[in-house]
């Protein structure tokens, strides 16, 4: 069947226009203007690599934001994915109530991240929060700690709001585990594999690419993380919990320093490409075992 070219073009055009408007043109602007001093009030001068040089030699805030982002990407790729995978393996035994548990673990993920941020702000509230009340109840003493705004606890409290909520990982890994053909497992059992060996030496290697997908989902989510920080600590106290998206937001929307903000955009994009590429390599995502 031969279809006229203009008809094909007509079908492609709306999608390409949308892509150009929201991705391609912005991408060009981000890369291009990262070499300019571009500020509110019509300041627009070519300054070469100055934004980049400044960021890495002269801006402690940028270094902190970058460092936090990397730490969170690493924690999310390992601890978050690890916990979710362990829970998925437990649920895959299909004990009584496994479906209910799967549903419950997804609750924090289906509520919007913005709502979750406000919930955590209350849960960790020093005056009436759930955590302080819980500790007071157990110890019998009045316990007061301002979790989100205390130097010592801010980072770990912000991290809590995403690290332990692994619902997404659980459903992805669980789907892969339940899709493993029963005869493969049966063969291993006949060969005398224990339940532990079955999990570690048969199932885990079989879901390798799925785990890779999970690590990509988890790692890239940390390159996007914005609302859970914005609605709780705003990056504080000081710059203790700032990350790249939040710093970028503040630089462009509060300081109106557009060129500098777009330099951060380039750093984020490069970080994203490196992250996805290395996880692809690490998990040999393009190779199939079957």
């Amino acid at each position: 069947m031969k279809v006229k070219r203009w008809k094909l073009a007509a079908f492609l055009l709306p999608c390409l226009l949308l892509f150009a408007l929201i991705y391609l043109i912005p991408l060009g602007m981000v890369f291009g203007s990262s070499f300019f001093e571009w500020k509110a009030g019509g300041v627009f001068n070519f300054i070469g690599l100055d934004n980049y040089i400044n960021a890495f030699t002269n801006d402690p805030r940028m270094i902190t934001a970058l460092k936090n982002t990397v730490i969170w990407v690493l924690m999310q790729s390992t601890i978050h994915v690890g916990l979710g995978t362990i829970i998925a393996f437990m649920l895959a035994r299909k004990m009584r109530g496994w479906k209910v548990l799967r549903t419950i673990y997804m609750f924090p993920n289906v509520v919007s991240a913005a709502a979750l941020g406000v919930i955590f702000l209350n849960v960790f509230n020093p005056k009436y929060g759930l955590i302080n009340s819980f500790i007071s109840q157990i110890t019998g003493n009045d316990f007061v700690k301002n979790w989100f705004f205390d130097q010592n606890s801010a980072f770990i409290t912000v991290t809590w709001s995403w690290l332990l909520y692994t619902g997404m990982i659980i459903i992805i890994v669980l789907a892969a585990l339940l899709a493993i053909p029963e005869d493969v497992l049966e063969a291993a059992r006949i060969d005398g594999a224990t339940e532990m060996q079955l999990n570690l030496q048969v199932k885990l290697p079989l879901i390798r690419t799925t785990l890779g997908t999970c690590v990509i989902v988890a790692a890239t989510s940390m390159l996007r993380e914005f609302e859970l920080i914005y609605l709780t600590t705003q990056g504080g106290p000081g710059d203790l919990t700032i990350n790249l998206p939040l710093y970028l937001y503040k630089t462009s929307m509060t300081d109106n320093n557009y060129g500098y903000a777009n330099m951060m955009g380039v750093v984020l994009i490069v970080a994203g490409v490196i992250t996805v590429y290395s996880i692809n390599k690490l998990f040999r995502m393009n190779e199939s075992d079957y």
Partner: protein
Amino acid sequence: MKKKLTLGSVLRFLFLGFFVAISVGPLLWVIMSSFKTNKEILSNAFALPSSWAPVGYKAALEMAPIGTFYKNSIIISVVSTVLNVVVVSMAAYVLARHKFRGNTFIVLLLSMSMLIPTASLLMPIYKIMTALKLLNTRTALILVYAALGLPTSLFLFRSYFQGIPKELEEAAYIDGAGFFRTFFTIVFPLAKPGLATGAILQFLTSWNEFMFALILTSDTSVRTLPLALNYFTSQFSFNYTAMFAALTMVILPSIIVYAVLQEQITSSMVDGAVKG
């Protein structure tokens, strides 16, 4: 067969129980607190409310236009989902079915959008919307959201179209149906399950999005539900009951809809992550 109570099973129970507690605990506490008075909230976090009268809900509805936020969220999510599904499915169909020069290039170009952390495009998108005079309109959010789901939808739809046998379309052509009619009356209905998956994901993305809503809108008349919460934390800073009631009104519908449609939503999320 009766299971023995071993150390392993006790540990497993505690481990899974801990995650149940941190997942449900805060949500139940929010809902319970929405019925308590300020004094009750401050005195004991675990006590049940003395009355279940919806005082906080009345106060919250009087203090913030939650109805407007809901309306905006529904309009924006529905329109951006329809836009995404129609526009992306048309492109995905051409890219899945028709060989022409540049096909692979277009697929590669479009898939590039998957690699970009969207926060990096925040400032240019703000400038573009300002230039198009779309700042502070629902249209701006509809366009941005439809694009956010573009890569995921594209891959879901393309692989779905590739799985539909060609013979049906060929038969339609022989019967004299044109290209457009074949797509909208034969292919589109056949691809419903695949399109539904993309639509569910697209709707969830739009419904929950916060950052672009924050920067692209400023009036309560066009703002969406996730932003309502931002508004509550400052507005209701001394009326905890109303704040908890507002939170409940935001989270409860999501949880109920998820609980009811969980099979479809769960499989969509898995498909979206694995194929997208």
